[in-house]
């Protein structure tokens, strides 16, 4: 049974159809990237899955359960954790307080231990008592990922995790993510613009263009797909 299924998801903003009858499946343990040009509807899709936005048509099924339209916090409790495009953390709290709050939602008693573990995974332990707003942009993004995994989710959704990061920070982030994903049995949905990151991490790719799915498959196949090339890759190899 697939872990996540999107069936015919549609969302409009006035006359603009941001997400148009999108079908997508994610198997347990799979790492899937969602790519597409700007405005393709990737973040809207994320918001539909996590219930920040309600779809105008279609449904979201998670582990066999229809979660369409549930309150945001209920969706999180089902086992879905996400990061945001514009990094969302608690600026005035320390890094460790940030992650502890995330862990507390899932397991209040072991929250401190889980938080320490998550900070370790993301190599942020040295920042534990430092106020989050003083961290570099790259470290803040990693902190957000630490918070997400501290929730012990079944599905991890990362929205442009490497956006705004330097080459060196991106490399580091990819290494960390790779190590983490291989260790745990986590399913991941990833929105990314950086094609190198996508090809290093993803098992499968869904390509969106103007709200519609135009390709879906293994990286090699997607790379070669003509429709994808013309819409997006522009021949960059």
């Amino acid at each position, binding site marked *: 049974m697939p872990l996540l299924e999107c069936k015919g998801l549609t969302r409009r903003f006035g006359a603009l159809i941001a997400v148009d009858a999108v079908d997508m499946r994610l198997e347990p343990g799979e790492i899937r990237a969602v790519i597409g040009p700007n405005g393709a509807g990737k973040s809207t899709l994320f918001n539909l899955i*996590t219930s*920040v936005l309600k779809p105008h048509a279609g449904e979201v099924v998670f582990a066999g359960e229809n979660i369409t339209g549930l*309150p*945001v*916090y209920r969706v*999180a*409790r089902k086992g879905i*954790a*996400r990061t*945001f495009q514009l990094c*969302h*953390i*608690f*600026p*005035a*709290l320390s890094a460790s*307080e940030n992650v*502890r*709050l*995330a862990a*507390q*939602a*899932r397991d*209040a008693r072991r*929250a401190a231990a889980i938080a320490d573990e998550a900070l370790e995974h993301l190599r942020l332990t040295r920042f534990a008592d430092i106020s989050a707003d003083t961290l570099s942009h790259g470290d803040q993004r990693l902190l957000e990922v630490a*918070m997400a995994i501290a*929730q012990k989710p079944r599905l991890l959704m990362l929205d442009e995790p490497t956006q705004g990061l330097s080459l060196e920070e991106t490399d580091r982030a990819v290494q960390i993510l790779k190590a983490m994903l291989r260790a745990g049995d986590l399913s991941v949905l990833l929105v990314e613009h950086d094609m190198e990151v996508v090809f290093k991490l993803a098992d499968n790719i869904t390509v969106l263009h103007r709200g519609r799915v135009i390709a879906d498959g293994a990286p090699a196949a997607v790379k070669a797909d003509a429709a994808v090339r013309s819409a997006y890759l522009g021949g960059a190899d």
Partner: protein
Amino acid sequence: MSWRLALALVAGVALLVPFVVPQYSLTVIVSALIFSLFAMSLDLMVGYCRLYSFGHAAAYGLGAYCAALILTHLQVPLVIGIALAVLVTVAIAVPIAWICTRSTGVSFAMLTLAFAQLGYAMLFRFRELTGGSDGVVGIPRPPGPFGIDWFQGKTGYYYLVLACLLGSYLACRAIMRSNFGAVLAGIRENEAKTLSLGYNTRAYKTATVVLSYGVGGLAGALYAGFAGYASPELFFWLTSGHVLIMVVVGGAGTLVGPMLGALFFVFLEHQLSQVTDLWPLIFGSIFIAFVMFFPGGILGLLRRRHAAA
């Protein structure tokens, strides 16, 4: 200086106060302590959740009138009467809190003000019960249980109020430092993120508002027992205004700051009102000055001075 030491010192001094000050001063001091409790209760909403309530007089008035009516009509001991008044206030606060927390910012402020105004109007609507503009007078302090009656005198009442204040402070502090308080910190910093972590933020806010009303109601009930009467002024919007001023000037989000603000307010009023009629204006001006230049309040200023030293 550690918190425990400071607390012990303050408590020690407080215990000795009735033996050191003259009786007429004790009246002002008891009022100040009741206001401290009232201000601290508002801080739970304003300082810890950033929910600006312009209608906290409702909690005070509810507590006061409930205590007034319970003590006057039912022959229950004072302490029981106050406890019952708090329970009724909490019960009424639940639907109010649920409705108000649907909104934030200005809308929340307006909703809380609206409920306070509604309460104010209800006092005049049901004047056979509430005495209308005369209020409820001659509130007794029935003794008991077990024949305990030391609170019937001013000194005894002082200790009652002190016990309630200390107890409430310790309880609120513990709550705010617990996991519950950590979630409130998250709501304060980034509510959308807190929601996405799996917390039902509205439930947390509602719980905080109800707690705030409960403690505010306790202050009101203590007032009714102390003053011996409850009047519509307690529900008036300026009462909400004054307590909000105490919180902001004292230093929101610290529990102690608003208590300082209340003491500052009461003592200044006591001193200034003998000299000039303009003292309410002075308070409003001080409030505006603090909002503009000292958002951390008096406590913030003290801490900065302490850190620099």
